[in-house]
Every structure is written in structure tokens, then in C-alpha cells.
């Protein structure tokens, strides 16, 4: 989710950069009839308007600066959030996912589990990211995780409607063949 939003954001910024760069270059090479190449970068009219600016305009500018800083803070926080900032979970869901994570981390071969519940609270969708040791056979791990998920579905009051499990292989202690 974060990655998709970042991609869109930077594509838009790239478009803006291209537009600004091309427009500036066209004026610079005197290819834009509306604006001459000898126009100053900061026109006198803009300076005059700034000098005559009333107090409320200055206050509006300060408020705009504050909004920009807040927006920057939001972008920063999203990038640093755990699990890619997909969702903000409620306490109940958080408790459920924590116990799921403990359950899955007990499965042989799984070193770390990150679990999230999404969608409708009555029929949630479970997404899990499991760090699996490189020495483990993933087919076996998958069988064990299936069993764990089935246990979970049988014991919880709101069994997940569907489950998406992503394995990430992390370096295990493999014996080097001499």
C-alpha cells in the first residue's frame, strides 16, 4: 500500500518536474510567445504584491507552512510504520493478531511472524508474513502452517474468510559441504 502510494506520488512529482523544466527551457530559448526570454525570474509585479501584502495574507502563508510541515510529518510516519502502514488496527484485532503471531512462531522453521486482519470484522481476511529459516523445507513448513491456521479457525469466534501467507526466506545455519 505504502509502495503503491509512493510510486504514484513520485510519478506525479516527476511529471511536475518535467512540466516545470520544459516550460522553463522553452522560455529560456525564447520558444514561448507569451513570455520573453529576457523576463526576470522574479517579476517586479510579484515583488510589489508581496510588499503590499496585508497581515492576513502573511498569516495565511504561515498557516500554509504549518500545513506543509504536517503533511511532511504524515509522509515520514507512513514510511516508518510497522508492516508497511497498511492499516491501523483496533485493540481487539491487535490482541487477536498477537496471539496468531505467537502461534505461528511456534511452527517449526518459522522464525518470525507478522499477522494482520483486514476487511470486515465479521469475516476478516488474514494476511501473514513469515520469516522462514533457509534450512527448513518450505513444503513441510506450509503443511504445519496450514494445520496452525485450521486450529486457529476452529478456536476463534470470527474465523478468517481467507488467508494470504507470504514466506520470506532468511539465512539459516546451513552446513557447508566440504
Amino acid at each position, binding site marked *: 500500500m505504502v509502495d503503491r502510494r*509512493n510510486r504514484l506520488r513520485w510519478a506525479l512529482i516527476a511529471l511536475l518536474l518535467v512540466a516545470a523544466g520544459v516550460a522553463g527551457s522553452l522560455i529560456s530559448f525564447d520558444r514561448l510567445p507569451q513570455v520573453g*526570454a529576457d523576463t526576470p525570474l522574479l517579476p517586479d509585479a510579484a515583488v510589489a504584491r508581496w510588499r503590499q501584502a496585508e497581515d492576513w495574507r502573511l498569516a495565511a502563508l504561515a498557516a500554509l507552512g504549518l500545513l506543509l*510541515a504536517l503533511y511532511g510529518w504524515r509522509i515520514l510516519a507512513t514510511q516508518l510504520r510497522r508492516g508497511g502502514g497498511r492499516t491501523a488496527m483496533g485493540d481487539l484485532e491487535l490482541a487477536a493478531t498477537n496471539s496468531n503471531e505467537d502461534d505461528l512462531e511456534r511452527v517449526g522453521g518459522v522464525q518470525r511472524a507478522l499477522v494482520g486482519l483486514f476487511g470486515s470484522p465479521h469475516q476478516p481476511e488474514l494476511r501473514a*508474513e513469515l520469516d522462514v529459516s533457509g534450512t527448513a*523445507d518450505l513444503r513441510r513448513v506450509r503443511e504445519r502452517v496450514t494445520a496452525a491456521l485450521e486450529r486457529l479457525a476452529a478456536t476463534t469466534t470470527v474465523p478468517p474468510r481467507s488467508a*494470504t501467507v507470504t514466506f520470506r526466506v532468511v539465512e539459516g545455519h546451513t552446513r557447508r559441504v566440504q
Partner: protein
Amino acid sequence: MRAFNRILSLLLGLALITGGLLVVVEVVTAFVRDTPWPIRVDQWAATLRQQTFADTIPRIVFLATAAVGLLLLVAEARPWPKRSLNLTSDGQRSWWLHRRSAERQIARAVRSGTSATAAKVHLRPRGPSWRLRVGVTASPEARPDIEQRARAAIQRLGGPQDAPVRVRIAKARRVT
């Protein structure tokens, strides 16, 4: 590219916070003391009023902006390799394998079981199956071993058994 975008976004966030707060401070100091602080915006404005669009520095800046924008646009718009590969799903459960971690694991398997040293692995989905390309530094005799290790690694990862494996061997350079 995803990590690059995140770092870029982190920097953008920091820049917006700094810039936004700077605007507030500038406005307040310009209002209270008549001279903006910490950046003398009035001096910057004076420079910008003297420079025209046709001057060399602005021209370079415009061209560079367009070029950087174009590079960024191409990087964002071109198709990115998938983050995860689909493993066969069963009913309501779908199983995925993180691509980069699988590539690293196959490379480790190839290096630890054969005489190959530097191994670079490219794993891509192809239809329902996968396509594997392995680039290694090894002697040409090691090819069957490398292929066999790579296939075994795919199977341990639960991947398709019929995935085509292509090995490209670069000969090790002599040290002496």
C-alpha cells in the same frame, strides 16, 4: 525501486517539515523585525529579479530539472519485478514467496554445494511456472552440479518442478 522510493519519501517528509517550519519562522521574523531570519529572502529575491530566463544558470537548472523529472518518470512508470511469487494456492488460502529472499536462498544453495563462487540469481514468474537464471563464476564442468542444486533449492522452496533453469558461467580469473 521500492526501497529507493521509501528513502526518497523519507527525505521528502524531512524537507517538507523543515521547509514548512522555515516558512513560519520567516513570516514571523519578517513581521516582527522587518528582516526575515534565518534566510534573507529579500536578498534572494533581489538576485532572482536580476536574473532572466535566458541566463546560463537558470537555463542549466531548467534543463536539469526536465532531465531528472524524465528519468524519475521512466523509473516509476516502467514495470517493476513482482515482489512475491505465487505458490500453488489451496481453496481460501493463497501462498506467496518473497522473490528477493528466494533468489538469495538459491544463490546460497548453489554456492555452498558446488565450486561456484559468485552466484547471481534472477527468479521471475512465467505463466503458471517460474523462470530461473543463474549467473556464476565457476569452471564449466560444474554446470550439471549447479543446475541440480538450483532445481533442488526450488523444490525445497515449494516452487514448480518444471521451472526452466538457465545457467550462465563466467570463468574464474587467474589470480597470478
